[in-house]
């Protein structure tokens, strides 16, 4: 890494002499249907609210407001622009947008009156689908208008294809027309293509980041180096809620290369930072530190004690998250009842790049370099902490490791920590905070522990007439920017998502929630509430099928008559897997679940011994509306399945007397090459608006696998990970 491009967009545009388009799309219009007119506002001065930059060298740069953390936003979003622009895919580039809640608002979050720029809830493509196609169509119209003026031909006689504007024997590239196009008025009216005319949408465009991520040149936060920069390695308290009492830096300061040792404290974290010119010196310094902690307010319970408390809570009435009919009465009158309880551990995100952040303080300003998932939340939090206006906190977007939610921290924990350390040395040098794997794994912000109880009532014919689901677990959203919009009447929507909206036709259905407060920081983790709710509901349904001697696929099908999209995905997965056609030595399990408006159904095939089964194949069907890039959809299904398998097989963060017991990949094992099953992905054809694909495959795999294991050995799995239940995979 030699240089990080550090031009403001304004400087860049002045220098480039190209065409930049900025839009203020009124929110109502931004998500309107094809063919609607929009008011657009040309940034004649190349104002930075731009999605597109066309340069004289004929490159088209799409400014992407969402982070690229593997899910394909730097390909999927530019595809939308390129489609309506009629660009050639080879001329498309992607660039991360600066932080700006007005211009780069997440429109789906915006629908809930929460104006922020950020990525989460599998919303990137869905909220950009209209916005970026309109941006592309407007740019195309301006290029055509420029050509019409130059060639003195009517615009109606000009065509655009693969990045070339032409009329008769006249033709020009976008780059050749860029300067003239910039002088054209922005059209007040753009018409979007009829989907049957799509050239790029629906095709597997090559990812814009594939090459840089195959040759080591892609730049992550970890790779940033600024002149004079110091690397900070930190010592955190041993328990959540503890604070620094005192520290002895004498030995740390003797380490060659160590320049400063400072205490820091933010609303999210506190501790001691050792700063050196390089990581290794700083780490050696950190390891030589001694510190005393005030643990009077520290959290001191273990995982098993937390779970025991939850079990007691589950036996008491909770807050109602859904009530159809009267489940309690129906259960009392049922011919037969079934019960099960499910347990889920804390989970770490454990993405490959441990958390890190680069901060440079100036006089009255702060610059951040980060694989930034929560732009305007981090911007505001850092600004408040430093006593600056948010506008004076700028963020340079970089590639992020998988994140899986971790980089959108509700308290800006690691970002704020970097800012606090930079402040503690009075801005004397830019600071790169680098957590080691152990720091990352023990920093909290986990997927919470949950305990679920389920009861079902059957009539004399074995029909499912009652369902009561009680969920116990910490709230993820309370205390975050999402609380106002998504915590209603004490119910955190993410605690019950996938359970309160259970699609099955059951006349008496109750879902209740308990939300205990526990001193362990928690956070959204790929597919959030569905990570546990899908397992509890889909596994319990298989227990019901087994008790009533019904086929698990047919039972689901019969209960989904009112949900044709669920049913279609379920049927596609079953058909492609050959459900109902026995295969020698193979046992199958099935599950279906909707999350973030995308429906995923999976069939898992297992073979081998009951004590050490082998996962042979996963067949996955997905309905995510229009398939903008079928290859990326398949990649995300594969990735979501692999991520879910890590947690299902052996993932668990456990606490003992408040201390996290895991520290690295030897005691927090994740899926490896030799455990990866064969995965086949099928997409349900659809003309509905596209929905997200980054998360929805994750929650389905664990129940589908557990149901296959149930079918194999006749005994259910009611706690995760499966390794804790004596099931280890070959």
């Amino acid at each position, binding site marked *: 890494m030699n240089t990080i491009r550090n031009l403001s967009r304004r400087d860049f545009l002045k220098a480039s002499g190209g065409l930049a388009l900025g839009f203020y799309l009124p929110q109502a219009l931004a998500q309107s249907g094809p063919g609607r007119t929009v008011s657009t506002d040309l940034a004649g001065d190349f104002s930075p609210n731009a999605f597109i930059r066309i340069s004289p060298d004929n490159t088209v740069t799409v400014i992407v407001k969402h982070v690229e953390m593997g899910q394909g936003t730097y390909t999927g979003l530019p595809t939308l622009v390129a489609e309506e622009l009629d660009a050639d895919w080879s001329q498309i580039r992607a660039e991360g947008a600066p932080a700006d809640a007005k211009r780069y608002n997440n429109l789906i979050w915006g629908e809930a009156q929460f104006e922020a720029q950020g990525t989460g809830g599998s919303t990137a493509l869905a909220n950009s689908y209209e916005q970026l196609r309109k941006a592309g169509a407007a740019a195309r119209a301006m290029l055509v208008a420029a050509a019409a003026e130059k060639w003195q031909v009517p615009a109606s006689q000009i065509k655009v294809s693969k990045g070339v504007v032409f009329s008769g024997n006249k033709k020009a590239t976008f780059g050749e027309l860029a300067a003239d196009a910039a002088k054209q008025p922005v059209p007040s009216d753009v018409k979007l293509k009829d989907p049957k005319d799509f050239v790029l949408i629906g095709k597997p465009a090559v990812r814009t980041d594939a090459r840089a991520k195959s040759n080591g040149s892609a730049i992550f936060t970890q*790779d940033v180096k600024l002149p004079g920069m110091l690397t900070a390695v930190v010592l955190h308290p041993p328990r959540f809620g503890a604070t620094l009492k005192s520290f002895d830096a004498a030995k740390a300061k003797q380490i060659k290369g160590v320049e400063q040792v400072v205490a820091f404290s933010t609303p999210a974290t506190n501790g001691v930072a050792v700063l050196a010119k390089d990581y290794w010196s700083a780490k050696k310094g950190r390891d030589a530190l001694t510190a005393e902690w005030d643990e009077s307010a520290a959290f001191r319970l273990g995982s098993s004690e937390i779970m025991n408390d939850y079990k007691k809570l589950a036996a008491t009435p909770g807050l109602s998250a859904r009530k159809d009919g009267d489940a309690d009465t129906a259960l009392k009158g049922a011919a037969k009842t079934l019960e099960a309880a499910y347990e889920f551990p804390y989970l770490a995100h454990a993405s490959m790049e441990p958390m890190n952040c680069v901060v440079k303080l100036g006089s009255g300003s702060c610059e951040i370099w980060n694989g930034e998932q929560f732009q305007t939340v981090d911007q505001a939090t850092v600004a408040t902490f430093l006593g600056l206006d948010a506008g004076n906190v700028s963020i340079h977007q970089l590639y992020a490791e998988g994140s899986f939610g971790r980089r959108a921290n509700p308290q800006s924990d690691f970002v704020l920590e970097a800012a606090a350390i930079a402040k503690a040395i009075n801005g004397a040098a830019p600071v790169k905070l680098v957590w080691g794997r152990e720091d990352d794994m023990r920093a909290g912000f986990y997927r919470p522990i949950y305990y679920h109880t389920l009861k079902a009532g059957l009539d004399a014919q074995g029909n499912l007439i009652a369902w009561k689901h009680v969920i116990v677990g910490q709230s993820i959203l309370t205390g975050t920017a999402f609380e106002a919009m998504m915590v209603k009447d004490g119910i955190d929507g993410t605690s019950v998502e996938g359970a309160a909206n259970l699609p099955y036709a059951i006349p008496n259905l109750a879902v209740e929630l308990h939300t205990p407060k526990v001193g362990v920081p928690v956070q959204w983790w790929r597919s959030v509430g569905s990570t546990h709710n899908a397992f509890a509901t889909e596994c319990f349904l298989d227990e019901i099928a087994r008790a009533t001697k019904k086929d698990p696929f047919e039972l689901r099908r019969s209960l989904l008559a009112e949900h044709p999209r669920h049913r279609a995905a379920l049927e596609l997965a079953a058909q492609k897997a050959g459900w109902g056609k026995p295969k020698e030595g193979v046992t199958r399990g099935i599950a279906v679940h909707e999350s973030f408006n995308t429906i995923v159904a999976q069939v898992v095939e297992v073979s081998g011994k009951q004590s050490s089964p082998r996962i042979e194949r996963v067949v996955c069907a997905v309905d995510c509306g229009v398939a903008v890039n079928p290859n990326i959809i398949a990649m995300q299904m594969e990735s979501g399945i692999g991520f879910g398998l890590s947690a299902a097989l052996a993932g668990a963060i456990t606490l003992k007397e408040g201390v996290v017991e895991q520290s*690295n990949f*030897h005691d927090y094992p994740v899926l490896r090459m030799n455990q990866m099953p064969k995965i086949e992905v099928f997409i349900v054809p659809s003309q509905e608006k596209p929905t997200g694909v980054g998360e929805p495959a994750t929650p389905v795999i664990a129940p589908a696998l557990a149901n296959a294991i149930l079918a194999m050995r006749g005994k259910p799995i009611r706690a995760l990970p499966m390794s804790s239940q004596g099931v280890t995979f070959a």
Partner: protein
Amino acid sequence: MISLDINGTRVQADADGDTPLLWVLRDHLEMTGTKFGCGMALCGACTVHIDGKPARSCVTPVSAVAGKKIATIEKIGETRAGKAVQAAWVAESVPQCGYCQSGQVMAATALLAAIPAPTDADIDAAMSGNICRCATYARIRTAIKRAAKEAKAAA
């Protein structure tokens, strides 16, 4: 000062002998393609070649590699196997977040140099030390087989 042979070029680094090669590459030589993931040789993100064999640079003291030939992701594309692997990575759409892929490419390249036509078992043995949290494993397997074919065709 330690003198190192990296990608065929002799370079000097002012680092203590106990400094892991990873941090000499990243912090002293500003070669950031090789990644830090765990610091304990558990994840493979830091994989480089030492005398042609894959090694975890996060636990390799720089003093141990003086006089040895070190190859990194920055130049591996200039070798026949490395070029084939990188082309296959793009063709099979392997990378997602991409953070682990330098290590994956280095491990795959070393595998193909040792076993030109690896079986699934060979791939499991050579690649199971490299974690990918995006779980790109199936595509890595396919890409290694593609690279093996193309390297053979080019030979």
